């Protein structure tokens, strides 16, 4: 058996409210909040990026795994906001946790699905016996163009998972991947902001892909939605994951714990992985967890996890995800500070 032996998340301290963004663009905040089921989102500090958040999330995962990082054989960071166009994020992460030099490393990209990809590959290498431990991270500090619908949701956060064959806290019983060529969201090289096909992003892309993956995964596992204690889906806004989950037969009660988007925003590659960390924080031995990510382009990775007795020992060894999300130290930014933090202001000489 292979599974998760350590997990950790990181959410920055800054937030911006939907009202604050809507005010600047003359948009109707209540309709955005209702339509997207979104109140506010996280914002990285100017000195934070995908790499720094990946490091902090992975340090939390190592605390829970209790392993020697020198035995980690692979480090995969999935993101659509890697700080360098050329130079991996994974090398800095591996160096910061002490996994170098005997380690395989690659960065993954597939819009919002890059994190679950890294998880799948790291876990598969452990399963194949190629490495003892593998790390898969989903992290993003994504940007939406000013005034665009994406600006209300694009946020920042990271989740990290360590996979192994011993001391498992959540066993992986089934996986399934589903993907087709679907141009719903893209960013060409040298473009600062992404483009999207507006309404096309919903039905043929997000819903069709997640439904395809989840249906196949349920068939493969011969399980039904009622067998699960928790379910988590990619959450580009608050509404989509609830809609797709209910269509598949899951209930709000099963999805609530991993449904972070209303106050976190869309953390892209971090979205369903961070949701999974929030679930593991409260899961009980024997619980089954259903997970399906989504990446535009488009694809979905599905996982079925079963929580073991070890979960109780590790839950409090690092900060809980919802504690980071709801921290008293949240700092609310005005739109001006937000644009400065996100580098949206053009300075002289740039």
């Amino acid at each position, binding site marked *: 058996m292979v599974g998760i032996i350590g997990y950790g998340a990181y959410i920055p*301290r*800054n937030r911006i409210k939907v009202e604050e963004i809507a005010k600047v663009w003359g948009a109707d905040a209540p309709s955005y909040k209702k339509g997207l089921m979104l109140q506010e989102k996280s914002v990285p*500090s*100017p*000195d*934070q*990026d995908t*790499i*720094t958040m990946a*490091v*902090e999330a992975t*340090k939390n995962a190592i605390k829970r795994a209790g392993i020697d990082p020198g035995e980690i054989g692979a480090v995969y960071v999935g993101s659509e906001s890697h*700080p*360098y166009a050329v130079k991996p994020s994974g090398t*800095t992460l591996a*160096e*910061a*946790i*002490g996994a170098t030099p005997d380690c395989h490393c690659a960065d993954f990209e597939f819009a919002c699905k890059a994190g679950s990809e890294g998880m799948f590959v790291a876990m598969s290498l452990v399963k194949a016996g190629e490495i003892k431990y593998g790390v898969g991270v989903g992290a993003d500090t994504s940007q939406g163009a000013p005034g665009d619908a994406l600006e209300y949701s694009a946020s920042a956060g990271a989740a990290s998972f360590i996979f192994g064959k011993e001391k498992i806290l959540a066993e992986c019983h089934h996986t399934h991947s589903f993907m087709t060529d679907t141009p719903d969201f893209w960013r060409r090289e040298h473009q600062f902001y992404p483009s999207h096909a507006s309404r096309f992003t919903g039905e043929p892309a997000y819903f069709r892909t997640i439904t395809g993956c989840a249906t196949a995964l349920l068939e493969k596992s011969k399980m039904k939605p009622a067998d699960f204690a928790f379910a988590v889906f990619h959450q580009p806004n608050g509404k989509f994951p609830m809609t797709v989950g209910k269509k598949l037969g899951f209930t709000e009660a099963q999805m609530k714990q991993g449904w972070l988007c209303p106050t976190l925003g869309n953390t892209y590659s971090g979205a369903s992985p961070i949701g999974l960390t929030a679930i593991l924080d409260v899961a009980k031995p024997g619980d089954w967890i259903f997970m399906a990510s989504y990446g535009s382009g488009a694809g979905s990775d599905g996982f079925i996890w079963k929580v073991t007795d070890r979960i109780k020992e590790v839950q409090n060894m690092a900060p809980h995800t919802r504690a980071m999300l709801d921290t008293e*130290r949240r*700092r609310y930014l005005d739109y001006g500070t937000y644009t*400065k933090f996100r580098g949206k202001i053009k300075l002289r000489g*740039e």
Partner: protein
Amino acid sequence: MSAPKYWREIPQRYRFEAAKCKKCGKVSFPPRIVCPECRSREFENTRINDKGTVETYTVIRVAPTQFTDEAPYPVAIVDVGDGVRVLCQVADCGPEEIKIGMSVRLEFRKVQQEGHGGIINYGYKCVPE
């Protein structure tokens, strides 16, 4: 910071690696060639704690060119135990928030970058706990 200097300092900047004197046990951070206590040259590798308290601080209001966007920002001397003090920038903390005796944690952050095209220097800063 030049790429070679940055690269040489990765163990201390990324992993808080310190040198513990094999003779008298004094922990030096950043690591040294000679022990400042007993002049011994033999060390073992150790790591400093990632938690500590603010011993003293100052607020930088007129910052060097690459930090002007961030001013005003506090810089603190943090006691991380084992007789080690670390000098670092305080992140996510305004000049009005910082206090002597405050609990902080070392976090991995971007420390500086060489314009838009140069390398990004990563390292530790402390953040309020």
